[in-house]
């Protein structure tokens, strides 16, 4: 299958090992700018491994080895001389369980910009408001910016984490099952937010919720035992995939 499009990220023939265990086999996948790309597949199929390798989060795991090319704006993220901190600034990540820092709402947002050298108070305040607005959280927290982030609800905490990611002006946001710990209403808010975010950013999302992938993504990749079984437009994957295995997985017949 050939999809011609503007790729912000281009994953080319990536193999990944955790020690002796190979977790990814020759995975290729394009990520188009300002689109939502979803990764689906049964537990242990390598979705999280793949998404975590996009911003080199797997570097933190001992014995993790990557082969192949992971192009970001045409440059290999794993190439020599890559500034990993810069990669992670440009490619942010949201996890399954909201993980705000145990500090105030405001400090959660300003933490990143401060590390990246912004000290001007007005500028930081501007970032706080902009990030929280973009994460559709501003109206709910604007009067409690100095209260602890831990007092927010699960859904609010997750949106705070998204705002925290936005505070350092990323281009790509990776989301690893961002709504699986949330109730349906909070989930719906995050989904709406993702739809808004792709106007400015690019989103790659791992999800176990098939309907969620079908609802919010433009492209979907189906993975199984470390391989990319099928990658195509979401509409195609969920209506008439080319591979029978994709059909069987999405319709709930295995996995």
């Amino acid at each position, binding site marked *: 299958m050939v999809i011609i499009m503007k790729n912000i990220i281009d994953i080319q023939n990536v193999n990944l090992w955790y020690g002796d265990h190979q977790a990814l086999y020759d995975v290729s996948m394009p990520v188009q700018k300002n689109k939502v790309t979803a990764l689906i597949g049964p537990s242990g199929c390598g979705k999280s491994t793949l998404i975590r390798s996009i911003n080199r989060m797997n570097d933190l795991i001992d014995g993790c080895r990557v082969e192949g090319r992971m192009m970001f704006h045409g440059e290999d993220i794993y190439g020599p001389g890559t500034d990993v901190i810069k990669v992670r600034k440009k490619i942010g990540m949201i996890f399954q369980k909201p993980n705000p820092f145990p500090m105030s709402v405001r400090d959660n947002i300003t933490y990143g910009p401060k590390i990246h050298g912004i000290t001007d108070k007005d500028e930081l305040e501007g970032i706080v408001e902009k990030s929280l607005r973009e994460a559709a959280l501003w109206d709910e927290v604007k009067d409690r910016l100095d209260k602890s982030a831990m007092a927010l609800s699960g859904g609010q905490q997750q949106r705070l984490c998204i705002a925290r990611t936005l505070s350092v002006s990323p281009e790509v946001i990776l989301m690893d099952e961002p709504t699986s710990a949330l109730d349906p209403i909070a989930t719906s808010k995050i989904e709406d937010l993702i739809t808004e975010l792709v106007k400015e950013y690019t989103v790659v999302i791992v999800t176990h919720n098939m*309907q969620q992938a079908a609802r919010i993504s433009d492209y979907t990749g189906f993975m199984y035992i470390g391989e990319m079984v099928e990658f195509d437009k979401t509409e195609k994957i969920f*209506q*008439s*995939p080319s591979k029978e295995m*994709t*059909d069987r997985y999405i*319709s*709930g*017949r295995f996995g």
Partner: protein
Amino acid sequence: MKRFIEDLNNLVGTANGFGDLVLSMAERSVYALNNLDADMARSVMDDYSQVDYMDGLIEDEALRILMLFQPMVSDMRVVAVILKTITYMERIGKYCHNVAKAVIYLSEKGVRRSYENISAMGDLAVDMVRMVTEAMKDRDISRFEEISAKDQKMDGLRDLVLTKAVEHMSRDPCCVDVCTYFISISKFFERMGDHACKTAEKITYMVNGKRVTYN
């Protein structure tokens, strides 16, 4: 998952039964026409209430499955196509009913035989309905290769019937009512063929996910 597969299989089974009923009505309406058999025509008319009932029943069941299980990919296509095709099949059943009603009128008028071309249209309609009911069952869409040609043949026959009937009516004004009924019957068969084509298009989508046009 087990319950979903059971329910889905039952839905498909009921939809196939619905197809069989409509096919049988089509066959009997053509037989009734060829033999001007009013009793057979009445049996077709009686069956329409069952068509109406099954149409509603299958729709309710398909909606219940959508609500409970949110089927995906090929399962979604099956449920969506059943929802759509029952409407076409109900219409075909209605046209069989209308043919039967016309046959009763004609036999009461003392008409003893049908037009040759109208009988041929009836046979074509039955053929086309059989194609879709069988394809629905065995999911073999290769038989649809001929359906467009049959539909074109149907349209040609319809034109012939119309020309011939107008000729008759202008020659002999006494046969205007009978001719008008024959014209209506030819229209019903032509519509049955069209609906069979639409059904074939949907079944093709169900089987391979591709959009095609057959007429």
